[in-house]
């Protein structure tokens, strides 16, 4: 009985000693992330570097907490036709990515949504599966997406979302084998 009491006391002391530290670490990471949570609506211009072709886009970005210490980022893009969105040829692109904090560093790695009905495959980079990760740098949330193309050239996409007083500033760059091929810049405001 006495042994049990000593063990319980030891466990409580260890829990007390450890708890404030672990909570502080998690809270610091969540505080970084919490600044980006929200729904943002805005506009952006995409420039094809090779041709100089410019496209106007309407964008909606939603960032929400996901699981423990992760986030989900959803993005809807409406690509206008000659500046208009009520004419045939208008395009809609939707994407959603889930991230969780990396176990071995101060960044986030993409995870697949838990689905009990599908087998979880390992990422096969050579087969063209993207490798995605994200990091927070001051007021910027940066998402990287790396893909190996079938011909061996690489594609690196970098999405930078900078927190401003009004919403998020948007910047995107696509690099193919070391050359920038596309740039997107835009502004969004927080939607109520």
């Amino acid at each position, binding site marked *: 009985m006495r042994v049990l009491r000593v063990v319980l006391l030891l466990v409580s002391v260890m829990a007390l000693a450890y708890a404030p530290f672990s909570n502080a670490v998690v809270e610091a990471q969540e505080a970084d992330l919490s600044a980006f949570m929200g729904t943002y609506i805005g506009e952006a211009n995409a420039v094809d570097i090779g041709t100089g072709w410019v496209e106007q886009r309407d964008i909606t970005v939603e960032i929400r907490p996901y699981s423990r210490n992760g986030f989900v980022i959803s993005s809807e893009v409406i690509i206008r036709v000659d500046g208009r969105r009520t004419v045939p040829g208008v395009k809609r692109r939707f994407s959603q990515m889930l991230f969780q904090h*990396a176990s*071995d*560093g*101060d*960044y*986030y*790695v*993409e995870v697949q949504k838990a689905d009990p009905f599908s087998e979880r495959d390992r*990422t096969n*980079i*050579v*087969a063209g599966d993207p*490798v*995605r*990760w*994200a*990091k927070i740098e001051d007021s910027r949330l*940066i998402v*990287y997406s*790396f893909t*190996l193309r*079938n*011909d*061996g*050239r*690489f594609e*690196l996409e970098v999405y930078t979302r900078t927190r401003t007083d009004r919403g998020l500033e948007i910047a995107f760059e696509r*690099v193919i*084998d*070391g050359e920038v091929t596309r740039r997107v810049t835009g502004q969004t405001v927080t939607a109520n």
Partner: protein
Amino acid sequence: MARALAALAVVTVAVTLAFGAAADTAIDDFSGRWQGKVLRQAGNGVATGLDPRELVVHMRVDDDGIELRWAAISMADAEGGQLTLDQMQAAFEPTDGPGVFTARKIKSRLLGKTRTGNPIEGKPFVWARHTGSTFTVYTLQIGTDGGYYLDQYSLTLIEGGLALDFLKLLPNGRLVIRGLLERTKG
């Protein structure tokens, strides 16, 4: 110093242009021992300092794939006048992609001896591409702060030698190193 580097870089580019890249080559044409000098230059054209390195490249091509060994000796990085030696060794196997290879293991001064894999699992991803007369080796790593390190070494067969273009992509810039190598052993 900067002017000397710029002049040498111009010479390197001029030599490459004058001879031009060889026509489409077989991967076997890269086999052998190659030796020469490389020079460091920043991507925006501003010289970072003259850093002549003696570079030796060994390539062995057989049915199983390609074995690449690489050694660079530099005075400029040296502390207290000591020479530094930079080495890399990797064996590449063909993939389903045309002219695309991957390496399962890599050995280098910076990485040590390590298995390759998914960069978000803390392993470097190493692959190579052969197209036309150029063989390019790539390495991608993700640092513990989430930053990336992407290196691209291109070897192009030209008349009388091998032209080297090394491109280091960093989140906030790029570094270019150029050089010329001659075949010293078939």
